[in-house]
Each structure stands twice: as C-alpha cells, then as structure tokens.
C-alpha cells in the first residue's frame, strides 16, 4: 500500500508489478462485444447492398421513379411502394401523434397519481402486442369493420376529398394506416411523457403565477420547451411505421397500384419484401426486393440519426440531464 490517492476515480489503473489478468481480460472481453456491434452494423449494410447490387446496376436511381413491377418483363421500380409507404406512414402519424402527445400530457400532468402507473403500463402494452397478432386482428376484425361501417360513412360525408372516395374494401390502405397508428402511439406517448416530466417546475409555476390556466401553461410553456423532443419522437414513430412489414402485408392487400383513395389495396416497401422475398421467380426480382430493403435501411438510418442529433442537441442545451 504505497499509494494513498484520495480521488479513486482519478487512478487510471493501480500500479502493481503483477499484470492483472482479470482487469485486462474483462476490459478486452467487453470491448470485443462493442467491436462485434459495429461489425454487425457494418455487415448488415454491406450484405443488404451486396444483394441489391445487380438491381442497382440494372436500374440505378431510375428504380425510385419507375412504377413497373413486372416479373415477366424483368422491369422493377419502387415508386408505387415508396408512395404507399409514405402515405400509410404519414396518415398513421396524423392519427397517432396528436393522440400520443395528449396521452403524454395526461400521464404527466392530468392523471391522478394512482392512475399514472397503470394507464402508462397499458399504453406501453400496446407496443408489446406482436405485430402478427395485430395483423390477424386487422385482417379478420378491423378491416371488415372499417369496410362495413367506417368507409361508407367517410365516403358519404367526406367523399369530396379524394382520399375518402370510392368503394369500401376490407383489405386496403386505410386498415394499414390504423394498424400502424396503433403501433406508433405507444412510442410517441412514452417519449412525450418523459419530455413533459422534464419541464422544470419553476417554468410551469411561473406561468401559473402569471395567471395562466393549466392549458395556457401547457401551450405557452411546456409545448415550446419540448417541441424539439416531440419532433424527434415523431421521427422515431415514422421510422417504426415505415419499417413495419408483417402487419401491413396482412391488411393492405398487396397491389402494385397507387390510388387517390385510402380504401383500395396498395403496398409498401416493407410489405412487398415480406410478401415476395421468400418466393421469387428470378434473381433480379430478389435483388430488386433487396434494393427496397436498402431504401428502407437508408430511411431508417436517416430518421434515427436525425432524431438522436435533435435530442442530443436539446440535452446539451438544457445542460446535461433532460
């Protein structure tokens, strides 16, 4: 015992003559898992791109603007699936985000203390329902219900909007939007609840002291304070909606067509992969499906990194712990 350093955290490694096998061993082992993580991520990108390469060479960026998907002529393009993906995800967000923010507000501000944990738990359980179960429910219960009751009403009353025109259909874009919104709500709700809880009490009390009602305090103090975080959580929800394959495949009907209406069948990138990848007729078709996967990967990387940068910048601005 020769060292009597008072600040243990400043000791890099205790100086000893015998090398410490346990110390270096554990360090190396844990560092190896970090390398493994990076390797998985790199390999994931490489392998997906490698499978897509023949299609990328064949179609180039024209893949994105072509609406052909024809196994016989060997023409493949993603346009309809890209539009279908954006349409379903955006409609899902339009339904889900306001609801989720309201739920976050309810859980952090309005709910009586006894209700907070159980209600929060139930909202989180929505995210735990396996997507295949949600899809089963969507195809056999919710789709027919929408076709019989909701879509006729929408086309009668809002039929002048192209989105709500046309004939009801039990498989189609609208059920996919509803299923996706059910998946997005818990993600955005739990993040916005954390965000609302992070608003400093002084700010809220300040607004109240100025005579604001609780809603005015929420609107003028809390919402602006967390707006960046809400944007980030919306992007995470968007990433989730874009990438969902199984439940969408089950309910959307799988048609390579773009309709102005939400009622007829359509398709998304992820659901086209799920429906066709296992049974491809040509290698170019398989490669084109992998091209769709590359596009999905790019979208998910961009939304995810952007969301993290936004929330990271916020945390720094708010001084560390948000």
């Amino acid at each position: 015992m020769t060292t009597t350093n008072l600040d243990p955290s400043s000791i890099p490694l205790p100086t000893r003559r015998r090398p410490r096998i346990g110390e270096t061993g554990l360090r190396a082992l844990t560092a190896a898992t970090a390398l493994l993580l990076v390797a998985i991520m790199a390999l994931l990108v490489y392998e997906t791109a490698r499978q897509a390469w023949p299609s990328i060479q064949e179609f180039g960026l024209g893949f994105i603007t072509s609406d052909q998907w024809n196994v016989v002529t060997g023409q493949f393009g993603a346009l309809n699936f890209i539009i279908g993906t954006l349409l379903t995800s955006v409609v899902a967000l339009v339904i889900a985000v306001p609801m989720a923010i309201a739920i976050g507000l309810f859980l952090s501000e309005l709910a009586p203390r006894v209700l907070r944990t159980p209600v929060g738990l139930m909202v989180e359980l929505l995210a735990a329902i396996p997507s295949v179960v949600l899809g089963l429910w969507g195809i056999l219960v919710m789709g027919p219900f929408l076709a019989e009751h909701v879509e006729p009403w929408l086309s009668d009353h809002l039929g002048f909007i192209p989105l709500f025109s046309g004939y009801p259909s039990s498989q189609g874009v609208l059920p996919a939007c509803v299923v996706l919104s059910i998946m997005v709500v818990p993600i955005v709700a739990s993040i916005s609840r954390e965000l609302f809880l992070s608003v400093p009490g002084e700010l809220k009390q300040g607004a109240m002291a100025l005579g604001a009602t609780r809603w005015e305090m929420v609107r003028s103090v809390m919402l602006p304070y967390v707006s960046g975080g809400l944007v980030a959580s919306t992007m995470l929800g968007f990433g989730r909606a874009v990438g969902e394959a199984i439940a969408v495949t089950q309910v959307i009907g799988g048609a390579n067509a773009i309709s102005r209406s939400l009622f007829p069948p359509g398709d998304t990138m992820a659901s086209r992969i799920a429906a066709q990848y296992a049974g491809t007729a040509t290698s170019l078709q398989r490669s084109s499906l992998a091209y769709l996967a590359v596009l999905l990967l790019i979208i998910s990387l961009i939304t995810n990194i952007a969301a993290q940068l936004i929330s990271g910048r916020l945390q720094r601005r708010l001084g560390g712990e948000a």
Partner: protein
Amino acid sequence: MSAQDDRNPLTVVSPRSRRRKLQGRLMELLASFAALVAIVVLLVVIFSVAKRGLPAVNADLFTQVAAPFGVEGGGIKNAIVGTLIMTAMATAMAVPIGVLLAIFDTEFAPPQVSVAIRMTLNVLAGVPTIVIGIFIFGLVVVSNGQSAFAASIALAIIILPVIARATEEVLLLVPSTLREGSMALGATRARTVVSVILPSAFGGIVTATIVGVARAAGETAPILFTSSIFANAVVTDPSQPMASMPFAIFTNSESPSHHDQQVAWAAALLLMAFVLLGSITGRLLSLRTRRQIEQMR
C-alpha cells in the same frame, strides 16, 4: 390549483376568463379522452383475440402438429416447441453480449466511444426487422440453408439493442458512491464490476432478459426467410428449420379456411398472453429494481 383560481377575485368576473377556463377544461378533457381511446383499443384487441381464440384452445392444440390439408383438427405443438427453442437460443446469444456491451459502455469506454456505441445501438434498434431477415438470409441461409439457428441469429440481433439499452439504464442507476467505495478498498475496476455493480444491477438484467424474450417470441419478419420451410413434425435439431407461433399465425391468418383461422386465433391468444405477461412482469420488476437501487443511495 384550479380551486385557488376560483377564489381569485381578479379572474372570477370577466367572461373572457370564463372562456379561457372553459377552453382549458375542454383540452384537458380531450387529452384524457385520448388516453381512454388507447386503453379501449388495447382492450378491444385483447378481447377480440380472446373471444375467438379461447373456443379453439384445446388439448389437440398442444399435442398435435398441423392436420393435413382438408382434414379437421390438428394443433401447433411443433410451432410452440419451435418458438420456445428459437427464443431460448436467441436469448442465450443476446443476453451475454448485451450485458457485456452495457458494462463496456458504462464502466470502461471513454465518453466519446460510449456516445458512439449508444448511437449505434439506437440505430440498430431502428433497423426494420424485415431488413434483418434479408441480412441473415444472405449471410447464413444462402450458403447453409434455412435453420432454427439462422432464425435465432436474426432474433438475437433484434433483441441485442433492447437488452443492452435496458441493462445500461440500470447500470447507470447504480450509485457512484458504491463504485467509489469499492475502489477505495483497493478493488480494481473489473473486481468492482463483478462484485459490486453486477449484483446490485442483477434485477435489472433479469428484467432486460424478460423483455428481450417477450420481444423475440413475437417477431415474425426475421423468421420469414430463415425458418419458414419446415417439416410438419416436432423438430428439435437447431440445424433444421422449425415451425414457430408467429409464422403459424401469419400463414393461417391469410387462409380462407375457417379451421385455419381458428388455429390462428388460438395461437395468437397463446402468443399474446405470453408476450403481454412477459412485458408486464418485466415492467413491474424494473419499477421494483429502480426503487431498490434508489434506496442504496
């Protein structure tokens, strides 16, 4: 708060203030209504799966494999066994790696490295599961064919970020006084991790594992290309593809046959019960661990 507002002589009189209060009430009502809608949706899904699934749950479901085409009866024994085995293998791969990763991240890595790893974990968590299916298809299935092992690797990659992030969260909760105390006694960092930090975070690691198991059991997309062509029999050899509950639900849900749909509902009920119970247990345990660790401070 509102009770005090009512007594405030400055705000009682004006009709404008009444309007503001009314507006506030309305918005609060809407927010509470949104929470109600979410709960109702959850209950509706649970109820409609239970209503259709319960009548189809019988002994055959657990003791028989799928009946040949056109024949009534049959069960999902092979799918239950397959899901149990593949989930177990995926968990066995992902938990050690995830926990070690979390240890590296919270205990050993320099701050910049730690930020980069956390970011990579989040990115991996955001990768669509169907893309991971394609990845493992190209990496394993193309050369070795479909197998339960290939599916387990895909599932393990999906739950790795779940487990690592949950473990990280608990490790960060362990008070730094415990770390400092251990090191003041002359323990190395490694000894501190093994003897002080891991035991106090053990509950959290169990929670992370449960959440990971629940997630892996319910995933369909990664199995679609890695373990989807299987013998209609109970398979226990991991080098062979196996049936699974999510895949059974997926294929049966698109079948026009009433009997197949019945099987899908029953399987969905079992799977959902398993996953939801796992999630509730994980959630409640994590609340408990949190409280316990907070008491150490």
